[in-house]
């Protein structure tokens, strides 16, 4: 009996132009930073603006990551995502206000413990809320985009109004914990401590998320599910369960983003989630729906651009994001890093 012919699959090398094309989005952030440097001129203000832009971008990314994964995995677009941001902020800030004894003293340990407690409380509540939201609001309308949009908008309104009912209609002002107040001076530029912390924290979260997605089995299933959900299900994985997990995690991350954003602005309103939602959508669209890396780059670009433009030409800051989105969509209609669907 003749042996089966040797099977030696070969991976063709991508041509150089394709490789450059893929890496292009990665270059955009440094290019933007460079452009900002050239047009601002002064190193110290540029440094301040860059750090605050990066901090803002990291926070937007934290809020956007869940949304983009949920869409990629199950084709569910959740317009109610913004509500989790608001709820997270309210729960977290309430926890911080309750822990005044820990935040008011200039002790790094106690301050960080208070912030951690607030973050954990916010993430638990928004995670649970996300689970409920998925069951009650999203589950009955799988596969119907139109209804999904309508129903999740309804959910957004209800949750936002419930915040009004529970916490009252007024905005809440807060001050950051003692050790996170103030700024450090570096190369003549005053950089707020909290912004540095936000950058470090966001970066750590992004790296952790990438590691989970690329190195663990659950990450493999999630990525495979994004590419071809039916095949993953055919192989015996219960994608629904994975999806619920991702939904809950995404909601918890939105809550985390809400706490961080609340501490950044030092004021929270029930409508903040709705406002952030606009930025989150822009980020998700320019990054490519379903792509975590795309959302990361998009978020950094939105944050940086907003800060640079607000410094150079305050009136234009409002439309700079729309302009960025338009430019990116003209270049790549599917977003910077579209998810390749094997369907």
């Amino acid at each position, binding site marked *: 009996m003749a042996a089966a012919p040797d099977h030696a699959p070969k991976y063709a090398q991508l041509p150089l132009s394709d490789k450059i094309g893929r890496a292009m989005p990665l270059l955009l952030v440094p290019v933007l930073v460079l452009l900002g440097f050239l047009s601002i001129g002064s190193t110290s203000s540029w440094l301040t603006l860059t750090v605050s832009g990066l901090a803002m971008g990291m926070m937007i990314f934290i809020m956007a990551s869940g949304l983009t994964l949920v869409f990629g995995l199950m084709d569910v677009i959740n317009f109610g995502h913004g509500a989790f941001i608001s709820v997270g902020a309210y729960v977290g800030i309430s926890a911080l206000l309750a822990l005044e004894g820990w935040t008011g003293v200039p002790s790094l340990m106690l301050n960080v413990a208070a912030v951690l407690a607030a973050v954990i409380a916010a993430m638990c509540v928004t995670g649970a809320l996300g689970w409920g939201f998925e069951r009650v609001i999203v589950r009955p309308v799988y596969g119907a985009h139109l209804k999904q949009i309508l129903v999740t908008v309804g959910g957004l309104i209800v949750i936002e109004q419930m915040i009004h009912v529970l916490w009252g209609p007024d905005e809440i002002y807060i001050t950051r914990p003692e050790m996170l107040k103030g700024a450090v001076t570096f190369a003549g530029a005053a950089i707020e401590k909290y912004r540095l912390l936000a950058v470090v924290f966001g970066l750590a979260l992004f790296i952790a998320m990438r590691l989970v997605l690329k190195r663990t089995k659950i990450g493999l299933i999630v990525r495979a599910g994004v590419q071809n959900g039916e095949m993953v299900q055919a192989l015996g994985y219960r994608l629904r369960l994975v999806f619920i997990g991702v939904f809950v995690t995404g909601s918890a991350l939105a809550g985390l983003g809400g706490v961080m954003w609340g501490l950044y602005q030092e004021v929270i309103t029930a409508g903040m989630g709705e406002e952030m939602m606009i930025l989150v959508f822009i980020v998700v669209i320019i990054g490519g729906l379903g792509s975590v890396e795309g959302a990361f780059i998009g978020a950094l670009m939105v944050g940086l651009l907003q800060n640079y433009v607000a410094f150079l030409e305050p009136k234009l800051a409002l439309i700079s*994001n729309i302009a960025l989105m338009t430019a990116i969509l003209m270049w790549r209609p599917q977003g910077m890093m579209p998810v390749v669907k094997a369907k």
Partner: protein
Amino acid sequence: MLTKLLSGDRPRSLILSFVLLAILAGLALAPFLFPGVRSLETAARICIFIVLVASYDLLLGYSGIVSFAHTMFFGLGAYGVALASTHMGRGYDALAVGTIAGAVAAAVLALLIGLFSLRVRAIFFAMITLAVASAVAVLVSQLSGLTGGEDGLNYSIPRELTPAFRLGTLFGVSITGKLLNYYLVFFASLMLFLLLLRVVNSPFGRVLQAIRENDFRAEAIGYRVVLYRTLATCLSAAVAAIAGSLFAIWLRYVGPDTTLSFEIMLDILLMVVIGGMGTMYGAVIGATIFVLAQNYLQNLMGVASGATEGLPLIPQLLDPDRWLLWLGVLFILSVYFFPTGIVGRLRSED
């Protein structure tokens, strides 16, 4: 004749026919049946919202496109009239120029948004319109030199359309310019509504419905899906802008809260869903019920909130300011349980 006027799209339900006739008669004779400033305000609001909601239904119900920028187009028309009246002085030419400019601007903007988003995925459209609409709303309230900012604009319209113009009395109701203004709004709304009815029952409207049901198949048969969707978007935007112009002519005031706010967008969504998506008559029923409820139900909530004082949480839940909460709940429930709305229900019973 009548069938032709309705473009062959009859109500197809006895109860529905009666309700529609009642609404038509009520609106046509509103100044005589329900004298009083407040009821006339309500009637004019109903007329304008019927057109606005019908134009939105062209998108949502007939084409299956979700847009969150409909108030933006509405506002463009309103601000068109306001700006023209402010800068050109009072006069009919200012009203005409403002209306046309607003409608054209809305159509062009809709075309631009459509080109960017409808080309790729219909779902992009929802997100992009949300982003653009909020940017425009912020822009309008920031550019206070041009738009009056948060305060909005007050301007004067031709004297024949204001309460100061008197013609005498008829059936015990004094005929003033306000009444003429109302009939301008009423007949313009009626014509726009019949026009939209014509559009959705034309071959163009059928193609839109085919695309809504199965865009892939429509493309395969040979219809340019993107083209049709974009056209529907532009048309709907232009009609919404004209409705905005009527609103501006009626109110003699525009401001971000009355024309551009997200709340109005939610109102429109709710009216379409309650009335029934995918039928123009749904817009009539939805807008009428909703505007009436909005005007009179909030009082009721205030009473209920006062009556339950002392109980925990319930007074806050019934507070008139929490009106939106109940709208949201109603909205979710109606999308789940009455996806065809009131009109769909009535039609299925016969």
